């Protein structure tokens, strides 16, 4: 009897010990992995199938592109040997490939893989398709070079090829399938395993062939110093914050700005990381149907808006946003002031007058927004008040994100919707309203003329001024309103060394101390 009881007690004690204490002991050995808390489960791992940032963030470690961006957003070669040779008429791009680049399958990358990958990208990816419309031909020139011939000069070509979201990923030809099952790229990490809502594991690719140039932004030498990357979905933002404070993650993406004071105080466990000019919120107007189809009404709404106030409502702390009308930050080749006097007017009487002149008769302005991101909702609330003060009637439709992305495709259902985008290095990459057919259906002769001039100018120096013209037309015709710029907040563990803040966080060249 006594023996049985004590054995049971022992077992209980052992179990208790296992439950409470066993795990922290493991932390002693040098770690070979990094745990990276992401905002959600990736929609897919096919980097061409979705433009979602999360997909690009993860898969840029597995797949590489012909070109990429350096720290100053200049296009630099990655799988391409060097910058392309462009013909005098700006239509033919000859691109030589870097030699000796190994695929994860152990074979050397050839021009056939590149052509097949880009063909898939132009057939399937939303971004690639837009480019496909201007591409006349795409062929291999021998085993280590390709040639792209355009129907007309198209300046954003290289930026399109470089972007990690909706990526022009170069993959092994034989792995290409729909849906993609094997992820065979050339990146410093190989795909290891995915367990939905639990993790995506990437592991170091031993035969990776790095560039010789020193690391610079996404460009230059890449080295997998951490053996295994564990991307873990942690959709609850408070949980990401608490996990960082507890030192559970090496990196936690997109934290609520209110968390900054707590992160700053958590010495030794986590370090806040600010990514400047991370993105911009924007309001899209329905130019096809409904009350906002009238340009004069849209202009009146623009007069009523106080973007500075909206940003404050969305991001709180002034360290997290910049209220400025130029769509690109100072220092960017696309910095321009055209039209910016229309920004942040917050002039209710003047808006009221303009609305009356435009023939506005109190029709409700239907604002579509969601709480997927708190700042969308908070900004929409404030905007509604600003519009009401200027005599507009506002109907706020708060739906979930899946509903919003569906409803915005139907011109009958909305007048304004709220969204945001990453701040990209090339204007044509975002927002999609600059292209054709995006919700809002902005399509005017002035837009066409300005964008035609902008896109066919191959001299980068001239493109800056030409973007100023486009920006001016956006302020005149009001197809969308760029609310301003916001900074991103993430956190990293003190152990994660040499992490460089980036729009699409990357972890090559980073190491665990």
């Amino acid at each position: 009897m006594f023996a049985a009881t004590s054995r049971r007690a022992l077992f209980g004690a052992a179990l208790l010990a296992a439950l409470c204490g066993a795990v922290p002991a493991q932390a002693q050995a040098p770690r070979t992995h990094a745990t990276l808390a992401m905002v959600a489960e990736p929609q897919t791992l096919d980097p061409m199938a979705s433009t979602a940032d999360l997909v690009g963030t993860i898969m840029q470690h597995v797949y590489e592109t012909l070109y990429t961006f350096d720290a100053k957003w200049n296009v630099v070669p990655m799988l391409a040997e060097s910058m392309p040779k462009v013909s005098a008429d700006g239509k033919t791009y000859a691109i030589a490939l870097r030699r000796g680049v190994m695929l994860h399958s152990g074979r050397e990358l050839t021009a056939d893989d590149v052509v097949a990958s880009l063909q898939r990208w132009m057939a399937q990816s939303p971004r690639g398709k837009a480019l496909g419309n201007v591409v006349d031909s795409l062929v291999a020139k021998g085993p280590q070079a390709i040639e792209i011939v355009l129907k007309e000069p198209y300046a954003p070509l290289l930026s399109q090829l470089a972007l990690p979201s909706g990526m022009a990923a170069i993959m092994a030809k034989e792995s290409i399938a729909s849906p993609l099952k094997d992820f065979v790229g050339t990146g410093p990490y190989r795909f290891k395993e995915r367990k939905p809502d639990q993790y995506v594991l990437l592991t170091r690719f031993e035969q990776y062939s790095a560039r010789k140039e020193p690391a610079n932004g996404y460009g230059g030498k890449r080295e997998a110093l951490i053996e295994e990357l564990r991307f873990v979905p942690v959709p609850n933002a408070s949980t990401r914050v608490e996990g960082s404070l507890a030192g559970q993650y090496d990196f936690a993406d997109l934290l609520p700005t209110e968390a900054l004071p707590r992160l700053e105080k958590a010495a030794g466990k986590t370090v806040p990381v600010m990514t400047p000019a991370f993105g911009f919120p924007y309001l899209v107007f329905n130019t096809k149907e409904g009350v906002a189809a009238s340009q004069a009404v849209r202009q009146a709404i623009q007069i009523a808006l106080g973007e500075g106030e909206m940003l404050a409502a969305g991001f709180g702390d002034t360290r997290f946003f910049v209220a400025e009308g130029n769509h690109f930050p100072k220092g960017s080749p696309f910095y321009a002031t055209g039209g910016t006097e229309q920004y942040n007017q917050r002039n209710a009487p003047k808006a009221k007058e303009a609305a009356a002149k435009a023939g506005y008769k109190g029709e409700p302005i239907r604002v579509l927004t969601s709480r997927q991101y708190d700042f969308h909702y908070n900004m929409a609330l404030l905007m509604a008040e600003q519009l009401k003060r200027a005599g507009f009637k506002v109907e706020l439709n708060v739906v979930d994100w899946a509903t919003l992305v569906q409803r915005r495709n139907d011109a009958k259902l909305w007048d304004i919707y709220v969204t945001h985008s990453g701040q990209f290095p090339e204007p044509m990459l975002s927002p999609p309203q600059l292209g054709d057919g995006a919700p809002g259906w902005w399509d005017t002769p002035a837009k066409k003329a300005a964008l035609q001039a902008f896109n066919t100018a191959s001299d980068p120096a001239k493109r800056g001024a030409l973007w100023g013209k486009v920006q001016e037309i956006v302020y005149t015709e009001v197809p969308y309103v760029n609310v301003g710029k916001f900074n991103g907040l993430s956190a990293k563990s003190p152990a994660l060394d040499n992490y460089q803040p980036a729009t699409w966080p990357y972890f090559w060249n980073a190491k665990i101390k």
Partner: protein
Amino acid sequence: MLRFLATRFAGMLVVLAIVAVLVFVLTRAASGDPVSVLLGDQATAADIARVQKEYGLDKPLPVQFGYWLREVLQGNLGQSIFLQRPVAQALLERAEPTTLLSLMAVAIAALIGLPCGIVSAVLRGSWIDQLFTGVAMLGASIPSFWFGIVLIQLFAVSLGWFPVSGYGAPDAAFGERLHALMLPATVLGILNSALIIRFTRASMLDVLGEDYVRTARSKGLSETVVVLKHALRNALVPIVTVLGLTAALMIGGAVVTETVFGLPGVGSLVVNAVLRRDYPVIQGALLVIAGIYVLINFSIDLLYAVVDPRVKV
């Protein structure tokens, strides 16, 4: 007996059929489009239409329902739009954390609920009884997400005893997984113990007033023996039923707790599926959960019939 079984079984099938129709209609009646979510912000209308066609989402609803029903009748719950795997496999992968979580939570609920309930009943009307009843009321009213965050801040962030979220590292041993489940199980256990306290108290009070308890006391048995041996055994039957139902409820109902603690269980699977409109997963998961409920009810009916001769078969 055979006729009883047959009618119950037929009833079960009718319920499942109704669930199938309702689940399908409700998921499709909600607005939203999985393909727009899948493809991201830059997708054009043409891309969306193409992928909708790939998944058969362009077909009229009755046709889609027909396809789905045909597959379900063959035992195939379909293919997830987002997870790149069959719905049945996704559910199986999620079953482990959810089942373990439910069992641990029920164990904790019972460990708290039974003693407190018994003491409350025995010391009926005393300040201890009032304290326990008050705490039980409080437990029933606290939202689980708030309680979860409080426990995370205390035990995971400040004290560092437990991980904040997740289900252990990818290569975690079973012990580490259980360790990761401790906090969420405590949240669910404490919140659910409220019900157990109240139930135990009520059930014990009923029994303590019975004649045979008075007889036991008059025989000169000690109060402990009377309460624990004579009263508790008889009071236990309805309590066990409640414990069983609580466990069953958690299999589908630990949604909030699983989300707060980032547990890859059935609840978070369903929530994510709803948010991204992964129709096959929503339909499959709800059908399976409903199936489990119906099966449990069916078993309880059977058990009653076996145990209690007054239930006619």
